[in-house]
């Protein structure tokens, strides 16, 4: 069976800087993949390429057996690839409920107008990330970093993902919040959701991932189980070297 | 042919001067100051007031015009722009409103009719059968001197380099101890002064008119949009592109069509190459 998502030799250049360099890796359906690497390694850029937020310089992106390089961002989301942002990007002038509503929106404008929203379903998603009635009505400006990350998650879950790209889900969170999010992710995994998780917090990453890909300067460094990759000399060097 | 080259060169010099003050603000603050045309208008009217109403010496009129431009630009920055700094759209809207308010003020004081400005210097110079007024010649030569001085200032002086640093990398400049707000303020002051000087020249070249801020503003906008940001040289090139295009249209087609092509150029360049002809990082 072909993997859920496969990157083949993807490259992204910004002028003279090569942020991602002939990178290839894949993730199987139902798998949870950790993506690690020092600052500036190109992890976020990889996500931007998968989502078409940046245009590929070269390479192929294959999702469920078909090439998707030509699909625009929203089509990729509709196909089930959804991402969170490293720096949360909520819609600031809308309450949490409306933020979730955007994620659940139908594709068709006619339906957006004709069909009433479903506040119960929205609330259910809010609850699934640990929000209560109170947070549901709050504005992003009033939320803590932990809650903002939860909101990112809620919005992406609302979009009905098959493959979730998580960029630094744990950054800026307390230990308790990390625990909650870990639990949530583990639970979603049982339902068959596939992940690629970027994190600098390796200890929090460990229980979540089946396999790890390490990159540095835009290229693949090492690939294997969590312990194998961390034991890899090249990986240790890359982390110490920065 | 000679006629087109001479007229084109003269007009382009003036346009370059008009555009450069506007470009500076854009490259340092990444905001479009739609009240820039007001500095041009103020320059013209203040000079007119001093020289043709109060009969003061021309030099005094010039100094007063520049002072008014600087003061008004500083006030715009301190009272409007600083409050709205993180919202470029709000800056744009509020400076546009300000421009219309100032236009109404000018109408209140001077009436809606246009006024004629006396030339800075009388006389005509004939070359190759083309008559060039000393006035426009002086204006162009002065433009070149001012632009040259500006280049020297930006590249060779401490303050000028700080301005360049902020325009290239605001955060980086901040880290190295430059206060970007102070630099912005200085840039606005310089821009106001340049606008006022350009205004005196422009008014002697055309006329004083309460809506005279619109045309130069559009030229300035065109230069930024077409040329891309930051580069004084880029501005010069585009100023010449527009200056020559207008001269050619005026002498070969019809004078009324001159603005049409500038407008079309803006639209086409923005749609076809959103980054401008000479590149621009972000939109």
């Amino acid at each position, binding site marked *: 069976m072909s993997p859920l998502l496969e990157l083949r030799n993807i490259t992204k250049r910004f002028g003279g800087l090569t942020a991602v360099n002939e990178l290839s890796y894949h993730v199987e359906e139902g798998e949870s993949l950790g993506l690690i690497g020092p600052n500036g390694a190109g992890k976020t850029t990889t996500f931007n390429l998968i*989502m078409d*937020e940046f245009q590929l310089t070269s390479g192929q992106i294959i999702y469920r057996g078909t090439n998707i390089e030509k699909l*625009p*961002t*929203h089509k990729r*989301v509709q196909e089930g690839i*959804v*991402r969170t942002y490293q720096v949360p990007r909520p*819609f600031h*002038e*809308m309450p949490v409920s*409306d933020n979730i509503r*955007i*994620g659940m*929106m139908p*594709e068709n*404008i006619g339906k957006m*107008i*004709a*069909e009433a*929203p479903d506040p119960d379903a929205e609330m259910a998603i809010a609850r699934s990330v640990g929000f209560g009635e109170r947070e549901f009505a709050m504005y992003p400006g009033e939320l803590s970093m932990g809650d903002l990350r939860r909101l990112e998650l809620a*919005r992406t879950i*609302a*979009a009905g993902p098959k493959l979730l790209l998580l960029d630094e889900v744990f950054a800026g969170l307390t230990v308790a919040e990390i625990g909650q999010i870990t639990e949530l992710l583990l639970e979603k995994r049982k339902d068959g959701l596939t992940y690629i998780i970027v994190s600098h917090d390796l200890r929090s990453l460990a229980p979540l991932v089946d396999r790890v890909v390490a990159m540095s300067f835009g290229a693949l460094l090492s690939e294997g189980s969590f312990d194998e990759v961390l034991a890899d000399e090249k990986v240790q060097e890359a982390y110490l070297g920065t | 042919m000679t006629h087109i080259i001479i007229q084109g060169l003269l007009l382009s010099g003036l346009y370059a001067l008009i555009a450069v003050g506007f470009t500076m603000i854009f490259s340092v603050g990444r*905001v*479009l100051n739609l009240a820039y045309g007001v500095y041009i208008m103020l320059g013209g009217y203040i000079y007119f007031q001093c020289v043709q109403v109060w009969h003061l010496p021309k030099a005094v009129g010039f100094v007063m015009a520049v002072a008014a431009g600087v003061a008004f630009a500083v006030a715009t920055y301190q009272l*409007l722009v600083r409050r*709205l700094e993180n*919202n*470029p*759209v*709000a800056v744009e*809207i*509020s400076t*546009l*409103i*300000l421009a*219309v*308010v100032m*236009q*109404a*003020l000018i*109408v*209140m004081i001077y009436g*809606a009719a246009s006024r004629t400005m006396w030339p800075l210097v009388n006389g005509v110079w004939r070359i190759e059968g083309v008559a060039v007024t000393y006035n426009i010649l002086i204006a162009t030569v002065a433009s070149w001197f001012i632009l040259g001085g500006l280049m020297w200032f930006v590249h060779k002086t401490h303050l000028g380099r700080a301005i360049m640093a902020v325009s290239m990398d605001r955060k980086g400049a901040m880290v190295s101890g430059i206060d970007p707000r102070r630099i912005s303020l200085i840039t606005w002051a310089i821009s106001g002064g340049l606008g006022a000087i350009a205004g005196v020249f422009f008014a002697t070249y055309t006329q004083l008119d309460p809506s005279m801020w*619109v045309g130069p503003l*559009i030229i300035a906008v065109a230069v930024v*949009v077409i040329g891309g940001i930051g580069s004084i040289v880029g501005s010069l090139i585009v100023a010449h592109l527009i200056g020559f295009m207008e001269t050619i249209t005026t002498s070969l087609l019809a004078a*009324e*069509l001159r*603005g*049409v092509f500038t*407008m*079309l150029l*803006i*639209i086409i360049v*923005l*749609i076809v190459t*959103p980054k401008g002809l000479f590149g621009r990082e972000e*939109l």
Partner: protein
Amino acid sequence: MLSDPGMRKYLVGWALFGVALLLFPQVATSGTLRIFIFANFIAIFAMSWDILSGRTGYISFGHPFLIGIAAYTSAMLTYHLQTPLYFSIPLGVIATMVGGTLFFLPALRIRGTYFALVTLAFMELMYQLTQVMRPDITGGTRGLSGLPTLLTGALPNYYLSSAVMFVIAFCLWLLIRTRLGTALSAISMDEDAVKSSGLDTTKLKLFAFMVSAFVAGVGGTLYVHYLGSIAPRAIFDINFLFTILIAALLGGASTIIGPIMGAFFLTFLLEYLRPYIPGTERYFIYGSIALIVYVLEPKGLHHIIQRLYGALMRGKQA
């Protein structure tokens, strides 16, 4: 929908507004009615601006371009071809929607400041073209006059413009209460994040542009057949743009009631100032007021009133 108490409160508000518009002529002179007619048109234009710019954040500095297409199309059809109004007005609206597509094309690639500039360029271009190209058709600088009017007299025109304004406002209000309204507002906050929530922002923007152009088209055609004349400087003009923009912003962009409030406030300010300070001074005064309000509270009067009301209610409770 009616069972929702919040909704019922709003509907009562709309009904009261409708009744007030209906009864107003009982207490007003025909002079005041004429002011109201003008306010209604400005309100329509401001709402048209708002659905595009207030909602999606794509600031249009060229709205007179759209209004002008509508007005000129219908004016030229009736003037040269004696097309009946019931035919020329829909054609004018359709032409405006085609013009709206022209507006839309740059919005596919450019955002923010640059978009505003292109629309401004569209307006200036149109101003110059109407004067230069075929003045025998467009009427050149002088424009066209003696155009057929829809109705005569202040009262019928008042009712017509009020009815159109009311219907447009109510429909737009219903529209922005749907999820579409939420999606359009989200575009103004972070367009890329809307895309990565799986929405086709191109389609959403096109829809908003078409609605905006439609409203501008209806307003523009009715306006020209109320005035009975048209000239380039009256339409493709910074002052006209300024009036629309300020009406929308002063009242509060991205609300329906805001642009209406702004339009009425402006028009009446203008009229009540007339005896004291005639002429352009009025522009100076209302421009200054608008500028101060805008700099203090970019969300406009609507927001200020809401906050005052909120403070008042909290005061009562305490």
